[in-house]
């Protein structure tokens, strides 16, 4: 099997370790990974800020770059949902029905990483070892838009030595929300405070999720508090203890 990795600009630039982990796990599972180097950004930040029309060239670009990919895998539930939930609307907004049709053909091929491994490949034990107490934050877009369900939890339960603890009020947003975190800094902080309190109450040593954007926010808060809790993308936990 062959997949094209949609790394996302955010992971590419700020969290390359997540991308490396995804490649290692997929290859370990016998999947051949392509990285179309012409990919840039899905345009979510612009689109969510109201600059949808300005993003249409990025939609065209994405469709072109991934035209030949049978399966597209991405370690971001949020960026996946941008493609799956918004690209068709944006193409229509620009009056480009041909592009909308191309997007329609692309959508079923886009998979969030954890569901690709647990549901498409049907693997729940990837052979990882991670002897820490871990709490999982269900990121909103991954959960509500990409419907990843319990795929991340099933994968975490398959990790040797990992103690998985429940997060109270897990389904509530951490308060990141892209530009929301700076435009409505006060409310964003209040939401983050509750999320951090819940995370810290679990006694976890690591907080994980399938989106580094939420983790950057949560981790930024935990670091400011010197809470002694790390944040790590799910893929990096699953790659831990691997040979290659």
């Amino acid at each position: 099997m062959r997949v094209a990795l949609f790394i996302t600009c955010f992971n590419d630039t700020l969290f390359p370790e997540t991308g490396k982990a995804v490649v290692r796990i997929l290859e370990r599972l016998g999947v051949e990974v392509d990285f179309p180097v012409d990919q840039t950004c899905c345009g979510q930040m612009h689109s969510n800020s109201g600059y949808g029309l300005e993003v249409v060239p990025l939609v065209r670009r994405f469709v072109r770059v991934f035209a030949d990919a049978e399966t597209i895998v991405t370690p971001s539930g949020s960026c996946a949902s941008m493609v799956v939930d918004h690209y068709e609307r944006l193409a229509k907004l620009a009056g480009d029905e041909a592009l909308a049709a191309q997007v329609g053909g692309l959508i079923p091929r886009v998979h969030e990483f954890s569901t690709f491994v647990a549901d498409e490949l049907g693997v729940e034990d990837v052979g990882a070892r991670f002897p820490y107490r871990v709490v999982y934050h269900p990121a909103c877009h991954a959960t509500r838009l990409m419907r990843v369900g319990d795929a991340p939890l099933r994968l975490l339960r398959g990790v040797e030595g990992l103690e998985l603890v429940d997060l109270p009020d897990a389904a509530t947003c951490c308060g990141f929300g892209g530009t929301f975190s700076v435009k409505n800094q006060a409310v964003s902080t209040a939401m983050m405070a509750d999320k951090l309190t819940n995370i810290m109450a679990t006694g976890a040593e690591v907080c994980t999720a399938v989106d580094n954007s939420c983790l950057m926010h949560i981790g930024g808060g935990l670091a400011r508090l010197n809470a002694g809790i790390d944040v790590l993308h799910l893929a990096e936990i699953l790659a831990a203890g691997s040979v290659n």
Partner: protein
Amino acid sequence: MTAVADSFPRAAALALGDRQLRHNLRNATHTIRDKRAAAVAEVPEWQALRDAAARIKDDVLGNLDVYLERLEESVSAAGGHVHWARDGTEACAIVTRLVAAEGASEAIKVKSLTTDEIGLNEALERAGIRAWETDLAEMIVQLAGDRPSHILVPAIHFSRTEIRDLFARSFGLPDLSDDPEELTAVARRVLRERFMRIPVGISGANFAVAETGTIVIVESEGNGRMCITLPRVLISVMGIEKVLPRLSDLGTLLTLLPRSSTGERANPYTTLFTGVRDGDGPEEFHLIVLDGGRTKALADPEGRQALRCIRCSACLNICPVYERAGGHAYQSVYPGPIGSIISPQLAGLQQHDSLPWASSLCGACAEVCPVQIDIPRVLIHLRGRIAHETDAEPATERLAMRALARVFSTRRSYEAAQRALALGRSPLRSSRLTRALPGPLGGWTAVRELPHVPKQSFRDWWATRNDGSGR
């Protein structure tokens, strides 16, 4: 709606410092949220009901002209009078004229968002007419000279002690306790006298059935039924989107509404009335049909789904932003997620230009909406309209967004920007400096550390790996 005094972020920041408010909001929203979840879980066909409700409302919105004319015919045939109001000012003028024609200086009111939206109480006050709210929470808010902060629980921001003090002061009862039963008994005594004496009742309308001319009022305390049945003259004010084609549509909507709003299987009082009848109920019935910006919203293909709203408030109770900021921060009769898409559409984008950003786009609201309004999608759409149709956005933001879109438009410019960021990474790591950063970065670093920018991007690693030069 009244002029906006401040932007949402500033108003919300103030509200966050109010301990009593935070406590009340947290308790109330979590209680109702849990009750709703339990009540919804009892209905296996919930999703099918939501589909059906969305279809009914979309049919209404697509054929408003037909259904509204049919409603007018039915109401007239049942002995009622229909008045058309282009905006709030016209609607208020009509109501004022009707109350004055009755020679009344007071009116009793059923809890109604539409009359709040048009500022009816204030308009009547200016004409020397006192409009008494009879819903307990609305009565509390009115006595305090305050504004409601929740669609369904208008006095959510009051504590029991505050209500006791308010009642003790207003009704001259210094020995009153804060026992809810005692407080309710006081309200009951005061209200009963008004119900019996005042000849004009004013209500909104949850639904208006085109087929029969029937108005539906849903309430919890029975005060509504008093206002609807006792006065000689009854005036109902409805937005044009409240019309329903058939009486049978109520089967769907009245299953969804109470479970979504109060988490009850059925609400305590549902009153259906049709026109006037000799010797039973009001002798005169007037229906004011209000546009008030609704046809403007209807003209927006993406925004119009907001008009499906049946005012259940499930989206408020689930919203993490509402739960912390409270209703007043939205500075509109319609707060919360639904308010953030209704208020700018009805009152004007400029009027409420910060509301579409009062959301982290987490999507919890869309998940609970009984008529399946995709609130996050409409929020994004309205952000776009504000960015392109108004000058509310700082020009720097527009330029930055366009510049960024251009950076991402070619691989070469994207990689150049990436390298520039990696080179500049050292100063970003110094906490003392980044905490004092200006602009959006400062908003970030005030409470969070910035991530460390790695030396090597993923794509650089990929390139070296595939060269065979590194692993």
